[in-house]
């Protein structure tokens, strides 16, 4: 039994929406995810922190049913997700936001199409007028205001941050209960990043969404998440409520990550408040 299996953090409420139980996934000889259990709760942001090759994206893709686990199972509302079930029902509950907002939107279609397609597939709106109204509503929910101004634009006409907002709006328009966000800010500029994190937090607070926030940036995980799981070599090596993990990391790898992350407030002069600025 690993550390991660013990002591469920106190931040959780109710029963999990989405859960991985003992899942493993291998690509040829290489095991990407090794016997991982992780549950996502309503109104809770769980961060999955790890470096390249740690298996965090594979885990997200297992949750998104892009891969079939070689062992273990994925449960939605406590029921195992059947491989034969209708995918569209599952994606009505569980939505994924990808890292690269430049490749996750069809560049040949206008924003109206990108969003109304999701609405149509999931039966959330019918008729042009109702669909347009919904599209505008969701554009404004991700702070693209006025929403009507974006309807006829192509993705190429928008900045990276605006595109990522569109892809979040597309996920939200389905009214899911779980958002899987795989490095949603790593390709965005710093000045835009915090806005996206705040947007995810708003969905947790206002819609009670369960959010899996995958990142290599432990400082942003601290900013956003209620609990943090640290992943290394396909396993979750440490899991704790956010502040506990940051202030009292147990696993040597977590300690190493924290020590390596850039943190200007740790520089010699920042920890010496008496020193005067020239």
């Amino acid at each position, binding site marked *: 039994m690993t550390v991660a299996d013990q002591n469920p953090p106190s931040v959780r409420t109710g029963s999990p929406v989405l859960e991985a139980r003992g899942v493993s996934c291998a690509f040829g000889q290489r095991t990407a995810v090794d016997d991982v259990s992780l549950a996502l709760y309503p109104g809770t942001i769980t961060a999955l922190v790890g470096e390249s090759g740690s298996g965090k994206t594979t885990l997200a893709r297992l949750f998104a049913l892009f891969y079939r686990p070689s062992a273990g199972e994925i449960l939605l509302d406590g029921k195992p997700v059947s491989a034969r079930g209708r995918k569209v029902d599952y994606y009505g509950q569980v939505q994924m936001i990808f890292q690269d907002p430049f490749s996750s939107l069809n560049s040949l279609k206008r924003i109206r199409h990108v969003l109304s397609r999701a609405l149509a597939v999931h039966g959330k709106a019918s008729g042009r007028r109702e669909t347009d109204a919904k599209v505008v509503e969701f554009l404004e929910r991700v702070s693209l205001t006025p929403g009507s101004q974006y309807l006829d634009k192509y993705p190429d006409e928008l900045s990276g941050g*605006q595109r990522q907002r569109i892809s979040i709006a597309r996920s939200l328009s389905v009214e899911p209960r779980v958002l899987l966000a795989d490095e949603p800010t790593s390709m965005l*500029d*710093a*000045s835009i990043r*915090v806005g996206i994190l705040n947007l995810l937090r708003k969905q947790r607070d206002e819609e009670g969404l369960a959010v899996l926030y995958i990142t290599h940036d432990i400082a942003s995980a601290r*900013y956003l998440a209620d609990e943090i799981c640290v992943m290394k070599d396909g396993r979750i090596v440490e899991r704790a409520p956010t502040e506990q993990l940051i202030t009292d990391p147990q696993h040597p790898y977590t300690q190493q990550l924290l020590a390596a*992350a850039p943190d200007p407030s740790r520089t010699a002069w920042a920890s010496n408040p008496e020193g005067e*600025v*020239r």
Partner: protein
Amino acid sequence: MNDVLLEARALSVDYVSERGPWVPACADVDLTVHAGEIVGIAGESASGKSTLLTALTRLQRPPAVTSGGSVTYRPRGGDPVDLVSMSERQLSRLRWTEMSVVMQSAMACLNPVTTILAQFRDVLKRHRPGMSKSDRVRRTGELLEMVGIPADRMYSYPHQLSGGMRQRTLIALALACDPQLIVMDEPTTAVDVVMQRQILNQILELQGKLGFAVLFVTHDLSLLIELADRIAIMYAGRIVETGSARQIYDAPRHPYTKGLRDAYPPLSEPVRHLPGISGTPPDLRNLPIGCAFAPRCAHRFDRCESERPELVVRGDGAAACHLVEVER
């Protein structure tokens, strides 16, 4: 303060195009690097930071064209030279021995079909012509060990090294002919955070030991604050603020610098709500008449929209903001 090593004055770079107007990627840039100093340039995508770097090192390719200004460089024991007007032939005498470059993608910089030793040999043969074959092998081993790579890895091919090792190999290669200035363009962006920390520590250690100056370009201001002596912040092709790392962190003067500083959630200080910076960077083809940051700035007033603020020197820093002038 040490002697001035590199000094750019009113440097402008345009991307020229047959159709449509030229795009001013860098405008009126003044930048000074002293001997033995670490100067950081921070900016977001399309801020002009990489354009500036390739213009300073004369590594730019069309359609980028230096349209104005000068870059004065002081070689060891020689008279200052202007890099902008130098011929390629004159420049090649400065490359590697006076200034060298470390780029972001090591895999794209190293030749995949020759060994590491062969790539060090190319540089040493050209710029250290007196060196014997055995001396070159010895020097290569010494350089690799300096960056924490066992000397026998010189017989490896780039693909046999890890990403971190490849990046450190580039740093060793940049050090090969003992340059006075090493220009680094996002040298740690492609590696994981633990490796990034190791590489940065190594750069600091070597810089302390060998005394070269570093011009470090990155999008990551939080990293730069820990690393650099002085920092220049770029926005929409212009430097909008310069100052010591401490000044930029403790008392930024430009609202953009402040917004950028506050865009990084802290690790050791208490978490508070960060507002981020609203809006998006401007289109360089269609810059506002006034301050390029004004449309995103919470402190803008009438003058910001009609008149572009100049970089005003204050103490050992400078900022291009009407607010700073008002303060004075």
